[in-house]
């Protein structure tokens, strides 16, 4: 493990992850533009909406000419720029404990400061605009997705809406519940449109929404296809790049910009695979980021692995959703959105009870084979229950089926005080030694 020399002590927190692909290098410009669009909308008196990723909001907002503000993304940018801590501390003084979701406490800190000073607080990309409306979601993903904006109403006294956006249950046969799950999701989408029309004065443009949904479906397909190249050896793109290139997928879905981006990514990865250009010159080990949101302030840690010949070839987190087939008779764009969501998750959950295993475990095991994985990385972000409770269990179950070593690092998405760099390095060093023993790829 000679190669890791050359990385300065403290580099994980002080350095920036070195990006391998041209596509990943474009992302910072894209996120700046996203903020710019919000500033321009506000300047023109147009509505802007706080929202979380992973739900149906983006497509609907764009069809109504409302600019989404993705607060998780903005908090992550602040974390990468070392600006988030002051806002988390502000939220703490307002009464929101540090152990609550730090994406949300960062934003609450910004909201509180904005209200206090009557202007945008000084933060990344010209600051975070006050929303015209806030849009949360229940049932899917996490509780802070509906509780945090409810709390934020004390600073942003603006209309607030919550939809239930569903995951099919794991232990109930999907066919038994499909009809009423879909019915509820579609009703919820109609509710959302009605809320937005009432509170922004903007009307839904249904033709535009149909086009957007078409674009989304095409984009998901290209995004998915591009990722197939990542099965190649050497790996053409590492996880730290993919955690950036997810931005146009999760935050700009349904735009031409997003489709163009993934077409380019497809070409770039195809080209790199054909020319056998890997992330690192001598790829010895391939890792998978098997669980957890990343520590946004310490993405340079991937370079530490790379310095020792280990590339993180694929990740579960922010992985593109599976392209799914929507029945021919489903034409209305809101229905297509609901079906797409339901099918994506039911496809993933389909294998749920195979051997009583968790669907995520099945998925990880399959990806280990598909992407020729030697070891698994996980990260436990201390302020997020929903993504991170269950990692130990998943690791335990995985160990019943694979002898690939598993490393769980601890930190947070935003709160740097939760990250112990020296401890992380020691854990990584141990893990690499184990990897050397268990991996036979280069024998």
């Amino acid at each position: 493990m000679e190669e890791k020399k050359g990385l300065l002590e403290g580099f994980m927190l002080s350095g920036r992850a070195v990006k391998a692909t041209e596509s990943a290098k474009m992302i910072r410009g894209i996120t700046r533009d996203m903020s710019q669009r919000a500033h321009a909308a506000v300047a023109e008196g147009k509505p802007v909406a706080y929202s979380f990723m992973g739900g149906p909001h983006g497509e609907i907002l764009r069809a109504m000419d409302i600019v989404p503000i993705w607060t998780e993304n903005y908090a992550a940018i602040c974390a990468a720029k070392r600006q988030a801590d002051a806002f988390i501390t502000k939220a703490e003084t307002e009464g929101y404990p540090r152990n609550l979701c730090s994406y949300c406490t960062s934003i609450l800190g910004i909201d509180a400061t904005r209200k206090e000073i009557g202007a945008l607080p000084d933060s990344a990309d010209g600051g975070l605009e006050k929303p015209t409306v806030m849009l949360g979601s229940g049932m899917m993903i996490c509780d802070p997705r509906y509780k945090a904006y409810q709390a934020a109403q004390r600073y942003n006294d603006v209309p607030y809406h919550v939809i239930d956006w569903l995951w099919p249950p794991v232990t109930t046969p999907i066919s038994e519940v499909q009809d009423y799950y879909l019915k509820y999701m579609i009703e919820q989408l109609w509710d959302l449109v009605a809320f937005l029309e009432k509170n922004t004065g903007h009307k839904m443009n249904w033709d535009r929404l149909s086009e957007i949904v078409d674009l989304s479906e095409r984009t998901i397909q290209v995004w998915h296809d591009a990722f197939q190249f990542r099965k190649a050896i050497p790996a053409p793109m590492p996880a730290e790049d993919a955690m950036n290139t997810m931005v146009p997928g999760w935050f700009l879905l349904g735009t031409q910009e997003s489709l163009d981006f993934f077409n380019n990514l497809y070409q770039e990865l195809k080209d790199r695979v054909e020319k056998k250009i890997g992330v690192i010159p001598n790829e010895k080990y391939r890792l998978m980021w098997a669980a957890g949101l990343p520590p946004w302030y310490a993405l340079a840690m991937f370079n530490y692995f790379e310095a020792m010949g280990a590339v993180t070839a694929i990740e579960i987190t922010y992985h593109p959703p599976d392209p799914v087939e929507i029945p021919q008779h489903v034409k209305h764009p809101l229905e297509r959105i609901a079906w797409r969501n339901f099918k994506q998750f039911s496809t993933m959950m389909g294998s749920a009870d195979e051997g009583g295993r968790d669907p995520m475990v099945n998925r990880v095991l399959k990806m280990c084979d598909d992407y020729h994985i030697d070891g698994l990385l996980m990260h436990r972000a201390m302020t997020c229950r929903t993504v991170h409770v269950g990692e130990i269990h998943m690791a335990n179950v995985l160990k019943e089926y694979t002898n690939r070593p598993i490393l769980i690092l601890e930190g947070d998405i935003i709160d740097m005080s939760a990250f112990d760099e020296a401890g992380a390095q020691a854990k990584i060093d141990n893990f690499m030694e184990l990897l050397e023993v268990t991996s036979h790829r280069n024998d």
Partner: protein
Amino acid sequence: MSEPSLATVEKLYQNRGLRAVELKTEGIKTMGYLCCYAPTELLTAAGVVPLRITGNVNESISMADAHIETITCPFVRNCFDLALRGEYSFLDGFVVPHTCDNVARIYDIWRYTIRQPYNHFINVPHTIATGSLDFFRAELDTFKKSLETSLDKHISSDELRESIALHNQFRGLVRKLYDLRLPDPPLLSGAETMKIILATTRLPVNEANELLRSAIEEIKQRPNKQPKGHTRILVYGPEVDDVPFIEMIEEMGFDVVIDDLCIGTRPYWSDVEITPDPMDGLAQRYLEKINCPRTFRPRTGTRKEDLDNRFKYILDFAKKYRVKGIILYVIKYCDIYGFDAVDVKDYMEEAGFPGIIVEGDYTSMSIDWMKTRIQAFQEMIA
């Protein structure tokens, strides 16, 4: 149970699993459930005894850390630890409503690790909007069907109606028990109230009714030994499921005369309306009538109106029970209460009820950290 009384309460409180083990030997099935959103009426109607799963605030985690993260809600972790140690091995099933992230996550881990014979997860809408009630009704139908298949028993509407009536009776009796705390001094302490409720959480509902009825009578008959001149207080929070926290507050010179807690008023303050199809009333009650911050009530009108819509019931408690203030207990790693507590505190203060937020880790060990602050609060409002 030939002599239901406060002595029985004490016995059942000390050994909460006592009756459950007896039931097992009598061949009666028991199923455990988490939180206030599991429709226990369906279990009773199916001939199964529903048992509320609680943790043990006096025990630290010994086995759960090998399976579940320390960032999990400590109440949930604690319950799971007990299950790992075999304390719930008598259960024939595990029923989990989707109340919050932590409870949703534990379902998969629990069913894989503990392997109780029957497991069911009920998705409970987080909002009350168009279609929410229909969806939840359908989800309850799915649960009913799954229960029927598993037990090979049809649950008739009459059986369900009868069960609802019994559970309504129970909730009514709990409210009667709380009536005994209206006088000053109250006829029983907050800690004793919680003990009585805890003793009933592991009993078949008809036995719980009997016990509660006689306990109320006994309390009415006995001389009131509650200390005079204590400060009447309301305690708000999630799963406070044992007495040390309440005892500590009462030792500081407070009378906890009313609460908004999961082992307290929250599951018992509203009844199920017996509708022509009893499943409708059941769905409506569990979705709309339980006051818990896990359920989003869509904002209507101004912020003030929204806050009333969310918290006026707490204010009503405060007025009816003539409290001087409110102690808000937030459990670490609970996003649901963590994001709400600031609003509740401000709302109550605005209405003239000073409040204090204390954060604990569920265990009785963490109570010591709070003492000084609660003492200072007592001095401030007494």
